[in-house]
């Protein structure tokens, strides 16, 4: 059974069907791309997978650690606990907080002390905080952000803010990482570096990754399989080469030949 199975997932907002009857399968360890023209429903699909929206119909089945369960309609924090983490297309960092705090907040669900320890700063609190800082620094090191850990998130340059979002998502210890346009607004050099890091993340942490991206250089280079969404429907799926030569996909992006 695949790590993530999406069955006939549909989301309607009133009369508008943003995601319609989508089927999808992601195997463990895969790096899958999700592409499509603007307004195709990619981010809506992410929001459905992470519980921000409740699907109108359909199922999302997650299969990790030998357990299979349906997760559609669950709250975002429960889904995060199940092992799905995400980044946001329009960066949603905790802007006024330090880089370190941004990462530590994502570790909260695994914190090993209770309210009383929090009020009294018991030895347990000290031990756990030390562990969290150490782990946060290790994660920040991946993107060379450790030296900026005390800076406010809003003061980081744009590219580093995007990196911090990935670090923050990683801090929840996910099995499946959803990246929503990680390379948006980056120049070709930065995109190339990011492509490398994503591939490295997946190797080092044994992650499964699903990413939305418009930058084809990134998608075609690292994704093993690609799903194409258009007007809320799954238009095509296949390897990068298949997608590149798929007539329907080309039409969706460039318009039909007359």
């Amino acid at each position, binding site marked *: 059974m695949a790590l993530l199975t999406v069955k006939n997932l549909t989301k309607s907002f009133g009369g508008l069907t943003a995601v319609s009857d989508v089927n999808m399968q992601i195997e463990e360890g895969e790096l899958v791309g999700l592409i499509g023209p603007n307004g195709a429903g990619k981010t809506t699909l992410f929001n459905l997978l*992470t519980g*921000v929206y409740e699907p109108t119909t359909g199922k999302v089945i997650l299969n990790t650690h030998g357990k299979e369960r349906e997760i559609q309609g669950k*709250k*975002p*924090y429960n889904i*995060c*606990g199940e092992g799905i*983490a*995400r980044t*946001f297309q329009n960066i*949603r*960092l*905790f*802007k*006024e*907080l330090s880089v370190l*705090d941004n990462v*530590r*907040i*994502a*570790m*909260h*669900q695994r*914190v090993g*002390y209770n*309210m009383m*320890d*929090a*009020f*009294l*700063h018991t030895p347990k*609190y*000290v031990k*756990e*905080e*030390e562990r*969290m*800082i150490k782990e946060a620094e290790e994660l920040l090191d991946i993107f060379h952000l450790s030296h900026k850990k005390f800076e406010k998130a809003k003061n980081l340059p744009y590219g580093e803010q995007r990196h911090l979002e990935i670090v*923050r*998502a990683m*801090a*929840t210890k996910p099995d499946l990482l959803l990246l929503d346009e990680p390379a948006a607004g980056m120049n070709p050099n930065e995109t190339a570096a990011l492509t490398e890091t994503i591939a490295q993340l997946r190797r080092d942490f044994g992650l499964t990754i699903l990413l939305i991206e418009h930058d084809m250089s990134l998608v075609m280079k690292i994704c093993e399989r690609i799903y194409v969404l258009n007007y809320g429907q799954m238009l095509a799926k296949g390897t990068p080469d298949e997608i590149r030569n798929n007539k329907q996909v080309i039409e969706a992006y460039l318009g039909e030949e007359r």
Partner: protein
Amino acid sequence: MDVRQSRKKNTVITLVLALGSFAIVQGLIMAGMIRSYQMVTVATICINIILAAGLNLVTGFTGQFSLGHAGFMAIGAYVCAILTLRDGSMGSFFIGTILGAVMAALCGVLIGIPTLRLKGDYLAIATLGFAEIIRIFAQNLVITGGAAGLSGIPKFTNWPMLWAFTVVTLILIIAFIKSSHGRACIAIREDEIAAESMGINTTKYKVMAFAIGAFFAGVGGALYASTFYILKPTTFGFMKSIDILMVVVLGGMGSMTGTVIAAAVLAIITMLLQSFSELRMVLYAIMLVAIMLFRPQGLMGDRELSVPGFIKKRQKKAPKAE
């Protein structure tokens, strides 16, 4: 930064500030500079710090705009007053304070679960409604003395006691804010959707912050009852909630240092303006308008006064040798 090291440093700073503030006021009392008239101001400062610290956790740190703090305060005040009127011993005062605080916290949970799904202005109106319900209850129940209220409440509070309650409240709330649970609350203020996606049960932490805020409002209310002998339902009206909110906003939402400073500044201004009688409230209002115009983020913004930070700032100002 090493957690142990910073904890040790914070302990030292806390001790210095706490003992220092105690020594100064105690000195002034012994020197005869603070008499019973000024003592009212000192008591008001302490009680307002306790009330506002709780509200700051809810409004400043968790970002939930509440106008119902006077309601929780009333619960603590009446519970403590009723108990001490029955049995005027020190023990019943402490039990009353704790019981009042716990009951206020329970009400916080009860009122928080349905209302905290509301946001911004809507939440403010809902909490305001709740505080009015408490006030109307106090006005009509026999046990609370009806509209006449309760009087002759035994006085147990004195400067050392008020000081101890204030210091303990501040230490507990600041410790909470500096924990993972506190960070979860702050994350809700910063970005609720992101917080939820990062595994934080936002409803749970909003209710938790609300309950903690209510708990300390209950403590503040109990101290109020014991300090001022008299309780009237009108004391806990809308204006009381606004008064507490004013301390929080003026000090800076999300700054405990600011809350302490603002509580002191406002109480002292009120005291100094006593001699202007009719013009008092006008001057007070003008001062508030001026502060909001020139420092809309509050006196401290969201920063805390920290000794190491102060030293760092001075070093930064000095030209760098490169």
